[in-house]
């Protein structure tokens, strides 16, 4: 009798509809949040760089990008740390140029959509950022004079430079600014295409229920967490999945290293940068970016703040954080779940981060969601030297 009852109960359970994957629905608030994330088709132009949209400048920039001859030891190019085959970053936790650096190399995919450049935002334009690694002793260790020699020594480079700037090669900061603007013109082309998430958002906007069904269910659950309980969008906001600003996560420094100042140092460098948006080398000295500089000032809270990275294409850019201390996206999500190892922030610190206490399936769902932010890479001809 007991056996029969057990069998009957077991059959009943087997026949009952399990919590169905198919029945999962986003709540209205999350659905609306996703639907409104429509990406601008192209990044806004940067008027501080008059060469930005010139294909000849972009080609010249591409040539510079892959030229190790620009570095002091002849062995390091921009592509060494921002490798097209590795999502325009490297798998190294800390980037290594001529010497070791203290930070992870950020990806250059979609970089021209950023408001600030570098983990501490030390540059306000892409072209001025491109000059930094050229000169940094541990990166390419070059100089304007080295750059001029490298251009003269390379007939293709010299010819294209002449075509844009005439027979006389500029010198000093003017030459560096030209190089930075060409590199930025190339990097503007490193744009990625629409992702599975963009297709979901478009389907929700247009009421295309069938189109929305193509989105993976595990990722959909992850989206519900991202825009709901986990509230990741608080910092990873908008269609670029970044608020373009700076936050302190309390990440401890790499063992043995001093604490990285982050935005504090970045702002100090920006405000004294001779290539900033209102400098003599800018092509829009009184434009919006230049005017914004007047509203920046260091505050104590800048200590240890780092730029919120975009989450687009994040699956391509491991390892993660400004020191590359998390090898996988699971590690990152797990950190936000527990905040284990996070240093206590001062009593002036922001309180946006609280442990999310995610379950293992929820961590998988968030990782699955992040995977749907991957768009098509730029065309093949941009992934190598011209």
């Amino acid at each position, binding site marked *: 009798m007991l056996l029969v009852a057990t069998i009957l109960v077991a059959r009943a359970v087997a026949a009952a509809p399990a919590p169905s994957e198919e029945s999962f629905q986003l709540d209205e608030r999350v659905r609306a949040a996703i639907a409104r994330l429509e990406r601008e088709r192209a990044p806004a132009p940067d008027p501080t760089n008059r060469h930005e949209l010139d294909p000849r400048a972009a080609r010249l920039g591409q040539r510079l990008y892959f030229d190790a001859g620009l570095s002091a030891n002849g062995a390091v190019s921009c592509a060494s740390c921002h490798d097209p085959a590795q999502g325009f970053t490297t798998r190294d936790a800390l980037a290594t140029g001529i010497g070791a650096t203290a930070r992870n190399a950020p990806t250059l995919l979609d970089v021209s959509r950023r408001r600030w450049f570098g983990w501490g935002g030390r540059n306000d334009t892409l072209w001025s950022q491109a000059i930094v690694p050229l000169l940094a002793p541990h990166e390419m260790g070059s100089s304007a004079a080295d750059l001029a020699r490298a251009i003269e020594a390379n007939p293709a480079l010299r010819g294209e430079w002449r075509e844009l700037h005439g027979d006389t090669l500029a010198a000093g900061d003017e030459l560096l600014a030209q190089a930075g603007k060409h590199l930025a013109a190339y990097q503007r082309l490193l744009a990625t295409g629409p992702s599975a998430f963009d297709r979901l958002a478009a389907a929700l906007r247009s009421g295309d229920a069938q189109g929305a069904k193509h989105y993976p269910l595990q990722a959909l659950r992850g989206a519900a967490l991202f825009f709901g309980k986990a509230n990741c969008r608080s910092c990873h*906001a908008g269609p670029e999945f970044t608020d373009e600003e700076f936050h302190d996560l309390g990440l401890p420094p790499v063992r043995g290293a001093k604490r990285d100042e982050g935005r504090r140092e970045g702002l100090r460098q920006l405000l004294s940068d001779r290539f900033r948006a209102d400098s003599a080398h800018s092509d829009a000295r009184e434009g919006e970016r230049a005017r914004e500089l007047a509203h920046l000032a260091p*505050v104590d809270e800048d200590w240890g703040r780092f730029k919120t990275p975009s989450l687009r294409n994040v699956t391509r850019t491991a390892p993660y954080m400004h020191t590359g201390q998390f090898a996988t996206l699971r590690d990152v999500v797990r950190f936000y779940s527990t905040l284990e190892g996070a240093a206590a922030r001062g009593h002036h610190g922001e309180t946006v981060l609280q442990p999310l206490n995610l379950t293992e399936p929820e961590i998988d769902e968030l990782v699955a969601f992040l995977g749907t932010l991957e768009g098509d890479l730029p065309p093949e001809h941009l992934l190598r030297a011209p």
Partner: protein
Amino acid sequence: MKAGVLCLVYLTALPWTSAGCRVPEGRSAPGTTVEGESTPRADSAARAGAPDGPSRAAPVPARLAPEGLQSVATNLGTFRVHHRSDPATIERGKPFRLQAWITREGSREIVPWAELSVDADMPEHLHGMNRVPKVTRQQDGSFLVEGMLFHMPGRWDLYFDVHEAAIVERAQVALDLW
């Protein structure tokens, strides 16, 4: 209300002017940013006041705050701040400006000697803006607030601190941004 933004929508487009005025020498409050100077404050708010003119002895003719603006009383009820933004809808991550007029509660006459400082923060995050706004008094008696940007979604509290002699009263507006 524009899709994608849950926030305060200002009613009137701004006929912005760049006209400013000089603070009489020695009257700049700490952190005051006045047209012609370029050093912003290192703390959170910016402040400006003091109308054009050779001294306090020259009274400014009574001027009225425009009608039809958003307005909010200071917390002790002495003043009312009439304000509008440019663009009219404040969006997360987009720079905006404010124009504000200060009157006494129950009056439309602009308070001639009032000064204004402006700041904002996210009370749920314990942080504010990453920008230092610049406030300059305009010739029509209003204040122009430049350099505002709310970078995160969520609740923002916008503060108008009205200074008159030793009195400081705060008016505050809550906004919820996507």
